[in-house]
């Protein structure tokens, strides 16, 4: 899925930066976030953070370009080709 081993760690880092942004811009002073709410916010922040990290990774970009060449509605059999390929790469 990733071409670089650093990508998931970058995702965690970007998630932390997004959390800091949310914490700074959205917290009401009279109702501060609790520790567990911050943990939850961080876990969810990692999702867009991972997306940001994937922008810096060539593998997801290459895969997108490859998928854009196919029309999986007109040719659903194209999906089987990829599923087979992924299965083999897992073995």
């Amino acid at each position: 899925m990733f071409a670089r081993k650093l990508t998931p760690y970058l995702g965690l880092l970007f998630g932390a930066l997004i959390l800091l942004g949310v914490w700074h811009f959205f917290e009401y002073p009279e109702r501060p976030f609790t520790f567990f709410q911050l943990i939850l916010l961080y876990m969810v922040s990692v999702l867009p953070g991972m997306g940001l990290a994937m922008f810096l990774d060539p593998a997801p970009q290459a895969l997108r370009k490859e998928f854009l060449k196919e029309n999986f509605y007109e040719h659903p059999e194209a999906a089987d080709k990829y599923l087979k390929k992924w299965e083999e790469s897992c073995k």
Partner: protein
Amino acid sequence: MQVGHAALAAVIASYAPEITGVTGGPVVEAFSWEAVIVVFLAHFLPNFDVVPIRLGLAKDSFHCTWSHTFLFAILVGALLLPINPSWSFLAFVSLILHYLADSPSSVGLPLLLPFSKKRFSCYLWADTGHSGWFSFKGTYMQSWTWFLEGGMFLVLLVRAYQEGVFPFA
């Protein structure tokens, strides 16, 4: 958009008072059962075009066609109008936002059917089908889906905090 539709629907439900306030009809409360049921049903309604495909009554290419048009949104809104004007407008907004959420997908939406067959898309991610494991995995191997759909879940948490509901009650 796949999983992100659920987060977007919940975000729309959080804005139910603002949306229904403009109709002059009864105001629907944020995150109320009424808001959640109307919004989720309307927001997911376009994707029920998968049912005839699964039953073998339509081709795969039937997905993202008639149910993803302005005409469909207007029809659903018009059907609900005599029952409840607030529900009608809430459903209409939910449908339009469903189309907006699907617009980055490469399959494109024929929003102007039956007047034009032109499909509208921002091409942010490649569409990998309407359902199944390959569609799911293929979608979430692309960066834009993580960024936008994950971002939508974060917006939902912020809205839950602003409205003071679980887990921020």
